[in-house]
Each structure stands twice: as structure tokens, then as C-alpha cells.
């Protein structure tokens, strides 16, 4: 597991997406209304829409291309559509740093 400080919580407007890129990895990161930050692959399983541009409602994001609804907790596409994107754990520390945890195999892919 690799810890990456992505930025400060103040750089994340509430209920909006930001794009995080490292190597070939591109994630959509969202600050939810409860203050937590979520990270998922920035690629809708349907037609590769950029999820970072979607409308965020609670812990769901709607893909901007064809309105697929994806749960930001686990990356699961909601019915009636089907599919899944990878979700990555994120923490916000006391100082407000947004920390992303990447699995080792992901690290190998990006570095």
C-alpha cells in the first residue's frame, strides 16, 4: 500500500469532482457533503465517460455522458445498468491533507 498526499481539502469544492493523474492512472476524486473524499477510476464502464465531470448526489455520481449512476463507496454501477469501476481508499488527516492509498500493483503501473 502506497500513501500519496494528493492535496489539501480546500482544493476540493464540495460535491464536485477533481481529476488526479499519475502515470497512466487517472482517478476522479470527489468531496462529498459529509466531508469525506472518495476516489474511483475516472472512466465509466459504459462508454468511458469522465466521471469527474458528473453530478454528485450523496455518495453517488452520475456519468455525464449517459447518466449511469455509480456508488462512490464501492464503484458499483446501479441498476438497471451493470458494471463496476475500481474504488480507492482516501483519508483526510487532521491538517486537512487528502491522502490516497494505492495498492502495490497500481504503483507498479504508474511509476
Amino acid at each position, binding site marked *: 500500500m*502506497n*500513501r*500519496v*498526499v*494528493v*492535496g*489539501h481539502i480546500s*482544493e476540493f*469544492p*464540495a*460535491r*464536485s469532482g*477533481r*481529476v*488526479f*493523474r*499519475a*502515470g497512466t*492512472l487517472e482517478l476522479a*476524486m470527489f468531496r462529498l*457533503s459529509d466531508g469525506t473524499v472518495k476516489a474511483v477510476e475516472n472512466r465509466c464502464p459504459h*462508454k*468511458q*465517460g*469522465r466521471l469527474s*465531470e*458528473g*453530478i*454528485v*448526489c*450523496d455518495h453517488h455520481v*452520475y456519468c*455525464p*455522458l449517459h*447518466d449511469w*449512476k455509480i456508488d462512490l463507496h464501492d464503484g458499483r454501477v446501479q441498476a*438497471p*445498468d451493470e458494471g463496476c469501476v475500481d474504488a480507492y481508499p482516501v483519508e483526510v488527516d487532521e491538517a486537512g491533507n*487528502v491522502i*490516497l492509498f*494505492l495498492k502495490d500493483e*497500481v*504503483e507498479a503501473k*504508474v*511509476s
Partner: protein
Amino acid sequence: MKRKLVMIGNGMAGVSFVEQLLKLNPGRYDVSIIGAEPHPNYNRIMLSSVLAGEAGMKDIILNDWDWYRDNGIALLAGQEAVAVDAAARTVSTNGGETLPYDELVFATGSLPFMLPLPGADKEGVIAFRDIKDCETMIETAERYRKAVVIGGGLLGLEAARGLINLGMEVGVVHNSPYLMNRQLDETASRMLQAELERQGMKFLLGKQSDFITGEERVTGLTFKDGSHEAADLIVMAVGIRPNARLAKNSGLVVNDGIVVDDYMAASLPNIHAVGECAEHRGVSYGLVAPLYEQGAVLARKLAGADGDGYQGSVVSTKLKVSGVHVFSAGRFADEPGTKALRVQDDLDGIYKKVVFENGKVVGAVLFGDTGDSSKLFSAIRGGKDYTGIEKEVLFGPSGAGGKAESATDLVAAMSGDEIVCGCNGVTKDTLVGAIAEKGCASLPELKACTKASAGCGGCKPLVEAVLSATLGADRVAAVKEGICGCTPLSRDEVVGAIRQMHLTTSKEVMHVLAWRNTEGCSKCRPALNYYLGMAFPEEHEDERESRFVNERNHANIQKDGTYSVVPRIYGGVTTPEDLMKIATVAEKYRVPLVKFTGGQRIDLLGVKKEDLPGMWKDLDMPSGYAYGKSLRTVKTCVGNTFCRFGTQDAIKMGVDLEKKFERLNTPHKVKLAVSGCPRNCAEATIKDLGVVAIDGGWELYAAGNGGTRVRAADLLTKVKTEEEVLAWTGAYLQYYRETANYMERTSEWSLRVGLETIKRALEKPEDRDALNARIDKALELTQDPWKQIIENDDLRGAFGVMTATVGAQAADGK
């Protein structure tokens, strides 16, 4: 203990039967399938596409290896069943395995019929039946030039077409004087022949093959009349016959095919047959639909469910031969006692023939346009008496003097695999399935389950018709459809509550009106943001996070995640300076595509999100709002500035309108146009508001549309001065803003509320003044978004990408 089901054959009919069985009763059997080909179940009908190079093997697989594994089916691929011991209830294979069974299903399909011509065993003489034949043909085409196909039926023509695509010269030999004589009448056949000849196919019709020439490899084909045709490859496609040899050897009664009863049972206990290998009431079928019907009957029986037996099928043929659509069904040949209705159009290559007997449709042939096929097929099966109204079958009640077909009739005539919702590819069968199996009893439920009508919404009447046809009109639940799934409240109720309770944020609305989802959904969030801004322009703070991506980023998102940038070009009038500026920016940011829009401006497409603020800064032009629910363009013609027909200054009128109403938030996009004379070159009568100059005044047209549903605009009023045009436009737009549903174009809005209502609301000068006062207030508060973003660090920052080097300790953000 599960019962053992063994199936010999791994083709479309058999596997479809297994699928249906698993659906009905997944736990009853351990299923083993013996398949001679080393492939999982593929779509044999698509072989011609593989040959034509349009599809690969992967594309035509119907059930992949995972499907067998996931359903716990043991597939013995590449093995042949060689013996059945009906007494011991076992099947043995050439792989040395012996499988015990409780139920045995023959789904052995058919074999190509090889003409017993002398020389048919030479190298280069093949059939066209499976993947291997396709591969042989592809390989042959690489080394040889000339092919002869024996058989002018569907299979032969498909093989011929494929070989032409592979670059071979192809001659088609047929013993009948015309092609596809079993599916087409002579007229249609001649039309088909002409089209195929145009595509490069050669025909040798009315020829009887005699023997094949060549040493080891084929060199040609000699006919009974003594003529000869050279060939490096001969493909026999004269027909198929049931593959019933093993069944016969096993002691089953076999005529041409394995004889079965109405429940697909063969002549020995616990043995059944489905598909092309079976013979039911003297008929073996070679088309998919009857085979699937047989599979369904057998699946019900073996699942232990009740059901009617198989009654035989009326077959129809609907195909595409080399890009030409043909259809035939029933008895389409002229016989004593029949009368035919014929339509022949050589200009467009269309031919239709419907055969009647005693007023009933008994057969039909369609060539070139098969749009009527489902209707005709149901007419044949339905047996309705059309005496006196025969022509309605082809021309509809309107053509025969009645009124147009209703959605219910349209839906009734649709076949199951026909697509009802074109945006999301939902078929009639899928809808019927969702109603029957998932219990959908209302339009919103059906929409949530299948996504039908969730795209452009144009198919809503059809989806509703499927629902009432399937359930019965009285059983369709009248569900009150709220503005989205979060609330049962309608637009008017929501807007009423916002005004009455003076709600100014979405959060308040959702809380007070008890929204089901506390933060709403992608439907209601943008809608509420609009309604709040419309009702309280000064107090409501625009909620950026509730805006759709295009309005948040002030650019149009494209399918690859890039954006397009359209600067404002008032009235479509530009200057050399602006054009140079646009060109410089396009070069600097390496814009991949520069295109003129339909609205007389310039679109810069393929821009990265990060580059947007920089481009806007360099352009230094106002946003064209090409992305917004807002005023898009005011299209103009030259008017009396240059045009010899112009009666008024259309350009100035258009520029004034665009300058006055730009940046306005509206329920949906709004397009305007001004034409300088009644020739209407600016196409003003298909705009949300169109202005047409006449000598001494202007005509205003309302609620036109040139998009999803074309609609000519209605005349709203005639005025004398430019000031009046502006005042009427302002009042009209504000009335639209205040009464339309979010995402409702003026054309739909006007149909819903009625043109008379709109005219009444605008007829008194004092009402128009009040509306104008409110729209002026809203306009006063707008500012150019591009400029706003360039000047605000936080807004601009959100366009950037965050990066980090992974691996370094606590890499720095941004």
C-alpha cells in the same frame, strides 16, 4: 439428487433450449453437452458476415466458455457422439467417454447436402456450413481466383457475396431459371439478380451440373448441356438435410428427420429432439424462429411445467442479401382463386406483393423495403378477413381513406426483436419480459427497469402502448409521475411551493418537500437550480455543483472527454480581426477540428479541459453559450443591407436580439432567427422564436423546432417596429421561462399549454410590460462566464488536474 440431462449437439436450437430450461428450473438437471465443433455455441446465421470480413469468430459467439462454466454445464467440445444405448441409457463419444442420462436430447442440426457428382471428392470442393468451411474459403481466396457456387438459394448467394468480398471472381450455378425460387416470386427474383449482377456476381441459371473436372484439385464444372465453367473452388450450397444418422442407428424412427410428437418426444422413452434434425408433422424447419419455439416447448416439458404442445410454424423469411432487404411468407405464388396486390417501383428498386384468398392474406413478398414485414406476417397468422379493405394492408387506413395508425396498432404489428426505444436499444420483447417477470405495471417502473424512453423520450407513446397491450389497459397503474424519482410532486407543485414558501436553495426544497433522496438525483438537481433562479433571481445563488457538466465548465463535453469552444458571433456577423484571433488561438492550442456550426458561428472542437481558461483569455470574446440551456444563436440572413429582396434590416434586428437576451437561463436551449423577407432564408419558422420581415413590419413565429421532432412555428403576432419585436420577444421568453418544465423546448411547451394560452398571456401591453420587467431583472444579473472564470483563481483552479509522482514520499499535490 439431480437428474442427468445429456444433449447431443451444441448449436443454436439446442443451446437455446438449455437456456430456457435453466430459466424455468435451474436446479433440476446436471447438463452435459456434446459438441463436435471445437467452439462454444455460435450464431451460424452470421457465418456469412465472418466470410464477408464484417465479423470475427469472437463477434458471433452466442454463449462463451464462461456461460457453460457459470451454469455448471459440462461441455465436451470437439467430441462426437458415436453410439446411444437406449436400454442402458448411455451415450458414448469418440473421445472414449460414456455418459449416463435420465433425459437425452438430440439437437444434431443438419448437414449440407452434397450433390453426388463425379469428382466431388476433389480438393477444392467444399460446403458452406461451419467455421471450418469459412476458413477454407478465406485461405483459398488468397491463392486462387475463380470460384463457382452451386446453389442460387440464400446460402449460395451469401457464400458468393463473401467470396466476392475476398476478391474472387464468382459464378453462381442454379438449376431453376430464377434465384431464391423458394423464397421469392419471379419479379422479386429478377430484381435481386439485377442488383447482384451490378455488384459483380455472374449467374448460370437453369443449368444442371454433370461432373467436376480436375486431377487432384478441381479445375472446373461441366454441365449436362455440355458447357463448361472453369473453377479453382466449388462451393456446394444446394441445401441441408437433417443430421439423423446417429438417431437412426440408435433405433429411433427417422424419416427425413427424427420423428417427434407435439412435445418433441422421439419414438423411444426419455429421448427428445429439437431443431433442424427433428421432423414434426412431416416438416423439418431450417429457420431460427421455429427452432426456438420447439426449444421452448421441450424446456417447459422437461422443467415440469404445463404448456401447449408445438403446433408447427408458419415460416417467414426476412433477410438481407448483399445489402438488399427481402421478405417472404406464406403462399406467395399466384394460384387459382388467389388475387394479388402488387406495387412495383423500379426507380427505387422496391417491390411488394400481397396475396389474398377469400379476403384473407395468405402470403407476401417484399423486396427492397421490408418495413411492412411484421404487419404482413401478423396478418397471415391472424387470419383476419380484409374483404373490401384489402388495400389497407399495404397502404394503411389513411391510404385507403381512413385515419392514421395508432401507437397500439404499430406496437401490435411489431415483432418481438424490433427495437422500441432507439436511444437505449430496448426491444419489444425486453419490455414484455420486464412486465411479465419483474412486475412492471407503470411507465416509470418500466423506464427504471429497462431504460426505455429514458433517452430522448420520443418512444414514450409506443412504450405505453406495449404496456397496455401486455397488461390490458385497465391494469396499467396510473402512477403520478413527479419531476424525477425523488418526489411524486409535479413541476407546478414544486414551483408553487418554492414561490409560496419562499424557498431559495435546493437543500431547502428537498428538505421541506420531503425528497426521497436527500441530495436528489441528476434529474432534479439541475431542474431545481433553474426553478429557484427563475423564481428568485436575486436571492438564489446559482449552485454550480447542480449544473450539468457543460454548464459547469462553460463548454460542450464530447464523447472522448474533450470540449468544444464556441465564441459569440452576434447574428453570425464577424470581422477579419475576430477571425484572425480565432485562427491564432486554434493554432496555439492545436485545436484538432475547426467547424462552422448550424447557427452561423465557429466551433473549436477537441480542446482539453485544462486549456479552456487559457483559450478563453486569448480569444477575449464573449461565451457563445453553445453548451447552455440558454439563448444559443440568432441566425440571420443578409436582409436589406445587401439583398435585393430584403425588406428590413434583418442583421441589425438579429444582433440586437442576441445582445439583449444572451446569457439568459431558460428551461431548455432557445434558438432565434431573423429573416429579411418572406423567402425566409434564415429558416425562422423552425426556431423557438422566428422573426420574418415583411414590407412595413415584422411577423413573429413561436415554438418551431428543427430537431428531434420537426415542427413549423405558429404565427404569434405581427408588429411594426423593431422595439415591438424586442418587447414581444422578451415577454414571450419570460412567459416560457415561468411556465415551462425544465428541459422542455418551446415546441413541446406550446403543445402542452396551448398556443391560445400563450397568445392570451401576451395580448395586453401591461402584461407584456410586467413580463419584460421580470426578464430585464434576470438579464441584469448575468455576466460573461468565461471572463468570470479567468478572473477568479478558485474557479480557474478547478479546471486543473492534480498530479503526483507515486513512489516518492508524500508526494506534493497539484
